[in-house]
């Protein structure tokens, strides 16, 4: 029980990392109706560029330079690839963004090789901040936690309290009207795309030295992002936050407090023999089940509430 705070903190951290990725994905969909399969690739690019800039000019330079560079890259990406696609043509969207993701994955391998690169936590951030239940909570993890919450607050403020936010939410539901009132929707979309990609890149800069920087890091996280966006509701920032945090905590809890089917199977049928069906059943436990849980959740939500928990429209 005394490790509970440790578990909660780390679960929240993982959830917030997922949120930083899912936020851009869901905002871009909300604004442009584009499902960007290459979104996690910008997260990976962020991690690689973060590493590269940290070699040249240190970690902190990377924190600033990389999101800016990636934001610009995002604009180019949108102008060149996305803006040519019709919103209704989701097959083309899928093919184009999926193709872009593969190009980026191969590209980083050509530049940085196929193995993990040595991206380290900055010297001044090493060490523990405090100790919970005999385990350290590192300064660096706390730093990521703070930055991600700040980021969420900033995004929320912009969306809810500023004129830009007003235009954005208007553009989501009545794009024709917003255009008619004289706003350049194309430029608004540029900004949203740039911001979404920049946040994903920043997540890469911060998570890269924690989780390792290697060419399949985007592939591995993309499915999770789609779960978050779909369950939270396409286009819903709040939904993304809540589901991301829930996934982080569920995953953490299922792994920490391992519940196994073995005692139950043994109690009902006696100790199972190796290689039998019962032995397989006894092997079932929450830890090995944890990676499947998000997808199960997505299936259930799609079946009973296709618009997602906080979504405005059905899929």
């Amino acid at each position, binding site marked *: 029980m005394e*490790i509970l705070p*440790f*578990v909660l903190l*780390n*679960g929240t*951290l*993982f959830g917030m*990392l997922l949120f930083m990725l899912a936020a851009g994905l869901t905002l871009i969909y909300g604004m442009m109706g584009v499902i960007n399969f290459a979104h996690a690739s910008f997260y990976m690019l962020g991690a690689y560029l973060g590493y590269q800039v940290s070699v040249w000019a240190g970690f902190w330079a990377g924190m600033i330079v990389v999101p800016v560079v990636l934001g610009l890259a995002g604009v180019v990406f949108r102008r060149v690839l996305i803006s040519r696609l019709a919103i209704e043509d989701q097959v083309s969207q899928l093919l184009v963004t999926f193709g872009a993701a593969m190009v980026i994955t191969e590209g980083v391998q050509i530049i940085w*090789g*196929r*193995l*993990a*690169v*040595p*991206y*380290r936590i900055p010297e001044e951030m090493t060490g*523990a901040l405090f*100790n919970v*239940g*005999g*385990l*350290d*909570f*590192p300064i*660096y*993890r706390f730093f990521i936690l703070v930055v991600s919450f700040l980021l969420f607050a900033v995004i929320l403020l912009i969306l809810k309290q500023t004129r830009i936010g007003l235009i954005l939410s208007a553009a989501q539901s009545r794009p024709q009207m917003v255009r008619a009132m004289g706003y350049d929707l194309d430029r608004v979309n540029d900004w949203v795309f740039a911001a979404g990609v920049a946040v994903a890149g920043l997540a890469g800069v911060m998570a890269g030295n*924690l*989780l*390792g*920087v*290697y*060419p*399949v*890091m985007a592939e*591995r*996280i993309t499915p*999770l992002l789609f779960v978050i966006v779909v369950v939270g509701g396409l286009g819903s920032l709040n939904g993304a936050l809540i589901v991301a945090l829930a996934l*982080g905590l569920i*995953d*953490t*809890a299922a*792994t*920490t407090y*391992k519940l196994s089917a073995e005692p139950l199977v043994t109690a009902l049928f006696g100790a199972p023999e190796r290689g039998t069906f019962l032995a397989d059943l006894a092997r079932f436990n929450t*830890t*090995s089940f944890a*990676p499947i849980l998000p997808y199960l959740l997505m299936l259930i939500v799609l079946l009973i509430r296709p618009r997602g928990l906080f979504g405005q429209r059905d899929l």
Partner: protein
Amino acid sequence: MKIKSLLALALAGTTALATPALAEGTIKIAVIEPLSGPLAANGGDILERFQFLFGRVNDAGGVLGGQMFEVIGLDNGWDVEKTAQQMQRAADEGVDYVINGIGPQHATAITNFIRKHNRRNEGAEMAFLAHSAGDNAITTENCDYYQAVFDPTVEMKLNALISGMQELGIEGPVFTINPDFSFGQTVDASFKELAGKAGIEIVGSEMIAPFGQVQDFTPLVARIKASGAKVVMTGNFGPDLIRLLNASVDSGLDVRFAALYGPDPSTMAAVGADKFEAAGVIAPFEYDENDTGGLPVLEELNVTYREVAKTSWGIDRYRMLVDGIVGAIEAAGDAEPKAAMGSIGGVKLTTAGGEGYVRVEDNQMVIPYFIIGVDKAAPATVLYKGDDIGFGWKTEKIIPAETMALAPTCKIEKP
């Protein structure tokens, strides 16, 4: 339909280009490994090393007074289906010896192919030389005249690890974390069985979804802490090991890691010397660059491979494989697999830890093994493709060949 035929054409084009042309009268070696896809770096590295090693043999005059080796790389793209296809191509090209090691399912495909092929093509037999034992049963259950394994089995390595741990006073209690696929399951089951016999207590264990699927290892760190374990034994590799080591050191977990894949340069680079030292990583390995045992060939390779490939020699069992097949051919006086494989059992091997051999009963290599530990001040730091990792290893313990040679469980029948 049009797209499909275009694709087929394109594929046919690439395979035609990739077909290597082999010279007449040479001993043909095919290295079948992933040369494209996610494991291309590993496969390419292996091919490079074998080309280098057989090149050395050729430079020294070949075998049997002048016969040369010819090494080709065949790409299986990490796809079992393609391994079978490449085996067919190897057979068509008249390849004598096939070398492979990445992925037990590929080894199984090769053994199956070779058995069928050798039954049907008397006089044109092929043999399989495995450079990694993985979790396959090439020598423990399915031993065959035409196959040999130049890597200790998982049981042998774990047995070495456990006796090393006991001699070094790193006795546990142990928490095991292994990837949840056939390899990890074999490691987990074998370790528990051997640890049980050795009286080492296991206080917890976990099988994790492998290949970077687990993003956050801190929940496991919490479990390890709660279990009171002092040692973590893991067969994790790549991102799974990087994240496990990062999470555990960052959380100040006071344990030592017995990590089978600790010596992987990419993992070492990503995690760094400080964390490797803090995690007290030890690993069973075939040799330690800073301890050549005075073997001239190793001292030479340590220097030359750094110059040639900008990579430290580091792994030595490929050399043992080449020495093994060269020794067998010389002993048989014939380079054909049918004759040479009859002499491969019994071939003596020189290793950094002393003499090793290929066991007659099952063609399994038995060598003294090293338990190595992190050494930040090691004279020879690990170099990989031009990148100096910045730290190296030292010998903690040498496990003699007698301890390594668990009793054989399979006996080869001569054809």
